[in-house]
């Protein structure tokens, strides 16, 4: 089973839920936790352990100046602005390249070949006997987050139980993460911002046809609007985590409430049962 943890709005507690859920599950069975928030991966902070790094590369064009006739076909074809043919050479802008391979197809001289370019890495570790952590990490300044997410997910592929921690937002990185998931846990907070962005996240899950459930985090008891929204969309509220300075303190220091505070391991076990009865 593959469970994605997403939110729309940032900072609602996706990583808190993902880390605690993974910790709790790993007490009794094997689980792989994949950090798909490759722009700002944080799960390794909750599970410090030595990791093996594997680079993530993406193919980008390299021009053979001896064959190139400066005909301009490649620059005209590229819709991403990654190639520009100027007076005496072809300029490439690898940061803009989407690795579609179009330039190599259209070059009449066969003067373009693709070479790998490193854009990030995947770090694999085993912080607990039954937990494998796979973190996708985008290099600073790179924009191809989906390629790193794809690579990180590939490392976990085939395992019977996988958790994906998504990035905030509703665009391509989130789609890449949710793809292929059997269930999506949407973590929200009871503010107009939280609800506004929850609506968008629900739309994404619906578009992809993935069943979803809600976790309300940092609740101050004023959850009526979120509860009404959940009922209207027929989404179960699977867990409510209250705001408390004690929980915030554990979380801020990189602790796990499922391990460090009494009662929470059971509640995360119940959450897992709610997702996978």
């Amino acid at each position, binding site marked *: 089973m593959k469970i994605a943890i997403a939110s*729309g*709005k*940032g*900072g*609602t507690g996706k*990583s808190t839920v993902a880390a605690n859920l993974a910790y709790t599950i790993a007490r009794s069975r094997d689980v792989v936790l994949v950090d798909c*928030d*490759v*722009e*700002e991966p*944080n799960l390794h*902070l909750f599970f410090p352990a030595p990791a093996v790094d594997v680079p993530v590369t993406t193919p980008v064009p390299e021009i053979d100046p001896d064959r190139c006739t400066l005909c301009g076909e490649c620059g005209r*074809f590229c*819709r*991403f602005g990654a190639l520009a043919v100027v007076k005496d050479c072809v300029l490439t802008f690898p940061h803009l390249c*989407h*690795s*579609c*391979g*179009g330039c190599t*197809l*259209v070059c009449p001289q066969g003067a373009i070949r693709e070479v790998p370019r490193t854009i990030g890495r995947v770090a694999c570790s085993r912080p607990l006997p039954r937990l494998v952590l796979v973190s996708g990490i*985008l290099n*600073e*300044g*790179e*924009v191809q*987050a989906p390629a790193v997410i794809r690579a990180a997910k590939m490392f976990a592929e085939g395992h019977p139980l996988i958790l994906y921690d998504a*990035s*905030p*937002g*509703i*665009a*391509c*990185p989130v*789609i890449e993460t949710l793809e292929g998931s059997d269930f999506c846990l949407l973590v929200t*907070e009871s*503010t*107009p*911002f939280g609800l*506004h*962005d929850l609506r*968008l*996240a629900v*739309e*994404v899950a619906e*578009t*992809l046809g993935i069943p979803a459930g809600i976790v309300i985090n940092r609740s*101050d008891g*004023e959850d009526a609007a979120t509860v009404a929204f959940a009922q209207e969309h027929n989404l179960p509220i699977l867990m409510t985590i209250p705001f408390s*300075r004690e929980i*915030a*303190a554990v*979380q*801020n*220091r*990189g602790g796990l409430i499922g391990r460090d505070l009494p009662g929470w391991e059971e509640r995360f076990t119940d959450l897992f049962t709610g997702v996978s009865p």
Partner: protein
Amino acid sequence: MIRLAVVSGKGGTGKTMVAAALADVSNVPQILADCDVDAANLSLLLAPRRLTTEEFRGLEVARIDLDVCRDCGICADRCRFGAIVRRDDAWAVDPLHCEGCGVCAYVCPMGAISMEPRVCGEIYTSATDLGPLAHARLFPGSGNSGLLVTEVKKRAMALSGGADLLLADGPPGIGCPLIATVSGMDAVLAVTEPGISALHDLERLVTVCRRFGVRISVAINRFDLAEDICAKIEEYCEAEGIRVVGKIPFDPAVVETVREGRPVTRTGSPAAAAIRALRDTLFVEFGLS
């Protein structure tokens, strides 16, 4: 004019709350932009009155004319994004995956594939009590969010005649939309919070922002929730030569005013006082009165 983006790395640290409050007390002619097009929330605090709405067209999307298609599958072989799929015993384009590169249309021997315009969202300009606002809505699941950010910034610049400040509420993360937000700005205000995740994310954000040569300042939100980690953030900033221009206490008035849809600076609460002080420190640095 000073162009300032409020950013954070980690989501949920209080970017939008700080941006709206700063706009509320800036006291200079200004133009506002919501560059978090994935989850645009700034308008929820500013009661905007919509002036214009435009379609946002991202990169094109492929379309297969099944009357012409001979089912050879070359398009599916060549597509690197898995966007050509088998549906009802025929080839079809999955728009969620199509990046609009045009390879399929190029390789199709029958000329059955065309590239069509794709509407990925809407771009708005609005009037608010605090100044004009450029904002947008990305349709859920659409790509091209960086491109949409660039369009929002263009609208903001077009409205900026006579303004001393362009204030942009940025996206979380350090990827495509963040880079589109920061490029061309004069300064960023990074809003962080005392947690090890937020500090880790701040460090990555600073690395990216440095490449754009923007002036970087830091505000620590909810600083009193973990004073020891707050001290670590201040140590980090000092080592990097980054000024901490404000520390905002945890304050229930923040959530209350978000629920009321107004900036926190409309109250006399501790967070409001801290943001007024932050405004003064920041504006002296910018040479704005």
